[in-house]
């Protein structure tokens, strides 16, 4: 048995995780991804908020409906070469008296890549299981809830609106291209429809998963040299103890499941 025991029930655990998850704050990531034939560079900002905590003995903390609010800034590149055949003016040669044979160069038109910015925000939910990690690093004891595996993200129906947002952003840009603009707009929108919800979740999944899959939620953090009393006067200095050992577990103490921390101390 530990010298010091501290325990909380699920209600207090919910309060603890509300605060701890909220304290993680907004996080941002950047990268590139592929949506169908299109390439997109992105910057995404995600903010987590707690769901419902379920303590599962002997060592699992499950958070149901852990919510990630995300804001995605995409820069979509439409490579027109994907839609239009290469167009080349062939080499033409003529024989000119007194000059000889003169040839024009072969001229090919390189279709540009049209870049379209798109901003979109939504949320996903996940049910994540966390294990307990206890570390002593740099003289600080930490107990963290560490997510196990990669939780399955539950996209809402509104996520499909990202396809509409891309279409709405791309259409006026493509329509502005002389002669072939309408054709390009129709083609791109047709491709977006073909990509569908499965394609969009396949695109967003790898972008958003790291916000949850690498999650470590602080449960306890105290210096090993723990201050019992602060210094009060020149003759009443600070009083410290040493926290020699920390344990953490989820225990079933009927009728409750409780998160239990133990500590051994010395003067």
């Amino acid at each position, binding site marked *: 048995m530990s010298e010091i025991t501290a325990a909380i029930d699920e209600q207090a655990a919910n309060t603890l995780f509300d605060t701890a998850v909220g304290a993680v704050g907004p996080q941002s990531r950047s990268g590139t991804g592929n949506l169908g034939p299109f390439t997109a560079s992105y910057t995404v900002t995600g903010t987590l908020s707690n769901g419902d905590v379920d303590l599962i003995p002997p060592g699992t903390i499950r958070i149901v409906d852990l919510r990630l609010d995300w804001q995605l800034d995409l820069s979509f590149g439409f490579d027109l070469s994907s839609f239009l055949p290469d167009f080349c003016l062939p080499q033409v040669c003529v024989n000119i008296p007194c000059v000889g044979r003169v040839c024009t160069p072969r001229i090919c038109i390189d279709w540009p890549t049209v870049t379209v910015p798109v901003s979109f925000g939504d949320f996903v939910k996940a049910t994540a299981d966390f294990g307990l990690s206890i570390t002593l690093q740099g003289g600080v004891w930490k107990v963290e809830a560490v997510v196990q595996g990669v939780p399955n993200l539950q996209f809402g129906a509104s996520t499909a609106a990202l396809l509409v947002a891309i279409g709405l952003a791309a259409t006026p840009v493509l329509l502005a291209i002389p002669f072939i603009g309408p054709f390009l707009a129709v083609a791109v929108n047709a491709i977006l429809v073909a990509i569908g919800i499965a394609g969009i979740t396949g695109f967003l999944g790898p972008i958003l998963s790291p916000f949850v899959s690498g999650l470590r939620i602080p449960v306890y953090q*105290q210096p090993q040299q723990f201050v019992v009393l602060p210094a009060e006067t020149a003759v009443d200095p600070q009083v410290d103890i040493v926290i020699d050992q920390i344990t953490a577990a989820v225990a079933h103490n009927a009728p409750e499941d409780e998160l239990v921390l133990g500590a051994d101390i010395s003067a």
Partner: protein
Amino acid sequence: MSLTQAENVYIAAHEDALNALVEAVCTDRPRLLVYGSPAFVPTTTVQETSMAAIPFPGVAGGIEWRVRLSRPVIDLHPQSVALPPELALAQGGLSIRLGVEICLDCRRLRIDPRPPRPNDDDTKPATHPLREATCCKLEVFAVGGLQRVAAAGGQDAITFRIDGVEIVDVAPEEVERLLECLLFMILQAVLATIRIPLTALRAGAFALALTVGPAIEDDQVKARGI
């Protein structure tokens, strides 16, 4: 039975943890255990607390004294440390064992043949050095309980309440009672300055607004809250 019971947060500190906390306070602030008048303790330092001599007519500078306590050892109910038969550890109570050394500066006083002067002041600080310290060491047992108090800064804390004191092997009985009375006051005053914040009793884990306790049971201090 759940640890938190009808509350949401539970903390418990075993008597070993409580003794470690008391040891930490006494180690870092040893002056809480040593008190003396200027001939013994000229100034207050981290090590010792300087106090006035006991004024007494005809004793220039007053009676010099020192009280030195050893670190108290706490035993929480149920009893695991033997007590003198005069003391019983009640349910929910605690016992304290410690050593006390009381010293007096014994001087041979000379009678002043001159007539008494109106400006004689026996309470002015002694300027003489310590001559001969006469000391006695006593083993003291006490029983009592916990009291909820505020530590410096206003945070929730506990301290130790004395209900009874017993000194073993002192005779005659009147002297024993006198010393027990003296030590009751000294111990209560000294122990009341040792205030253990609840944050230390939970090693900083989980915020607690106390609603139940602190109470002593199973060799532990237990408290619950939200």
